[in-house]
């Protein structure tokens, strides 16, 4: 049985994924759904961050440490940077849809958006 501490970040990632899904499923306000999506996204941050982490590893910046020293993984951090941009982008686009949908149908509640049924 591995130490729970060594798996904690993965459990937190799973939990955030669950929370995000829960928020969207139970949402009553479209802007709220969008923010829940941002929480869902942060699950991937935690997962990627903890995958590349190494106990005692330095940050992968060799400006003040000697090359060749043990560092944490730079690749996942590059992936996370992409992820951060994706988050901002998706939120901006979804919010624009919500704003426009509100202008057209006067509501921001998913329960009242019922033009697409059946």
């Amino acid at each position, binding site marked *: 049985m591995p130490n729970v501490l060594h798996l904690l970040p993965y459990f937190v990632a799973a939990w955030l994924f669950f929370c995000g899904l829960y928020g969207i499923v139970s949402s009553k306000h*479209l802007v709220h759904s969008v923010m829940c999506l941002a929480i869902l996204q942060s699950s991937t941050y935690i*997962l990627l961050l903890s995958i590349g982490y190494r106990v005692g590893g330095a940050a992968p910046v060799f400006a003040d440490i000697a090359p060749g020293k043990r560092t944490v993984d730079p690749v996942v951090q590059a*992936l996370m940077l992409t992820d951060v941009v994706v988050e901002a982008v*998706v939120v901006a686009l979804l919010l624009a849809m919500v704003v426009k949908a509100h202008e057209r149908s006067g509501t921001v509640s998913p329960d009242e958006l*019922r033009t*697409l*049924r059946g």
Partner: protein
Amino acid sequence: MTAPSPLTPLPVAVPLAGAALLACLRKWLNRTVADTLGIALAAATLLISCFLLASAMHGNSIYWFGNWFPRYSIVLGIGFAVEPIGVGLAVLASTLTLLSLVYSWRLTDSGSNHFQPLMLIFLAAMGGFSLTVDVFNLFVFFELMSTAAFALCGLKTREPAPLQGSFNFAVTNTIAAFLILTSIGFLYAMTGALNMAQIGLALGSRHDPCVLFAFTLMICGFFIKAAMVPFHFWLPDAHAVAPTPVCVLFSGLMVQLGLFAVARLRFIIFAQTFATHEEALQLILLSMGVVTVLIGGVMCYAEHHLKRMLAFSTICHAGIMLLAIALGSPVALAAMMVYLVAHAFIKGGLFFTSGLLLHRLRAIGERALFAKGKGLSWTAALWFLGAAGLAAAPPFLLMTGEAGISSAAEEMGRPWISWACLFGGAITAAAVLRIGMHTFFGWGVEPITDEAAEVGELPETAREDRRTFWYRFAPATACVLIPILLAGLQVWQGVLRDASSVFTSQAGMLHLVYTGSTVAKHLPGWSEALRGSTVRGIIAFLLAVLLACTSVFRLNLKRSLRLGAFLESGIRPLRVLQSGHPGDYVLWLTIGLASLSAASVLLLRR
């Protein structure tokens, strides 16, 4: 090693640079110039992709961006595989985009010239998605494709429906992207690599819960894009509201690219994972495919909104393609690719034709169109030819694909798959025929309708001009004629079969990544299966006519014979599920996710 063609990055780079140029000059270009530039760039991309395809036919190669070759076994950079299947999809993407841009020439709303650059970005993303062999790069292009698609879907901002449709689309597909990213995280943690072949090599035949869970997350992500039941709810909403030229790209290629990605993963990354559980995996995928075909087909017949009907037919046909992938043999994959190409054109043609109807008759609901289309002989011809194409009747290319799938299924001992193909073809064709009989002939009594068909779609074109110019007819005609031409042309099918022997072999891909070239094996064709498939195609078309007639002439029939009318009114519980509520859709997504991961983690382990 084979030197890769220097053209390799251009199917992505040219449309991207072009999109930036167009967006830069957006405010100062008038509509005609912007359209011309867009068409020229799409045509240039098509030309480049064709050259690339020619070079890929001479031998497969791999292109390393930034000149980063692998060091020993570690892949440093991102690679594009230049092999006929991926490049062929890039060609298909640029062809469809070109046709769509021609269709939208000058008249349809361009959202103050935002439309053309977004279409070009969409094109670039589809190209990159089909060429890349790096999982994270696949994710990036997935997200790029999605972002452009979300925006394009909501182009018609005058109505509330497009915004809701694109919101549902965006929420579900963004969750798909995070599923894929989580899976990439798992794979990276296990193998420390991002190149597909290297991951596959490192994973070997491991099949602990971790690998299986990563597999499930990845395929669920792509199944959301590919609209497999129960992940399909977003698709009809998005397709019903998107502008016609965008629908063509969504239905013709975007959805199927999800399945293409599933095939890539299954054959490269997880090739050895299921070596001992091939049977169980097939069972899971096949049952999903069958459910998708059934629900897609039944719902398709029950729709009275032209675009929604076509959207469900896409779900049904995507289910058939999943059946082919589930079989997992090289022949099945080649057949699936043939099916994909044929379906893309036929479905594109039908969407273009429905756009023509919206343009000419200013309506898109079946009842509103009733008997209005008398005298539109060209449009009617295109519509009925499209129906025959969907039924996989000869001489359309879809029949060739169906024959291949059937022969592969026969070989694997699952002959019932050809019946699933027949069902899917017949019922979707019947829906198209029914609408055609109502609209163009005015047969029968006024058709029944439902709430969804009433989503008043505002016409996409200016009211003053109801004439139909050649540039509106040409894309539709091309889409219907190309599959007939391709069915006659045998050469490319041989190339495709050989290419799929590389595509489906992990060893072949590894060889390609590490040595820069690979040799294709020769695969036998399936010409002996064509005869059976011709018969089935004709039967499917006749059944479709019969079914459509039981619906159109329902009042002249005894109650027990009104099968069409019964199906047309829809199966209540199924229709209720299609609620248009993002919360419901995400719930169904969760249910699918939980059941698939439970199935794969618990059943496939052992």
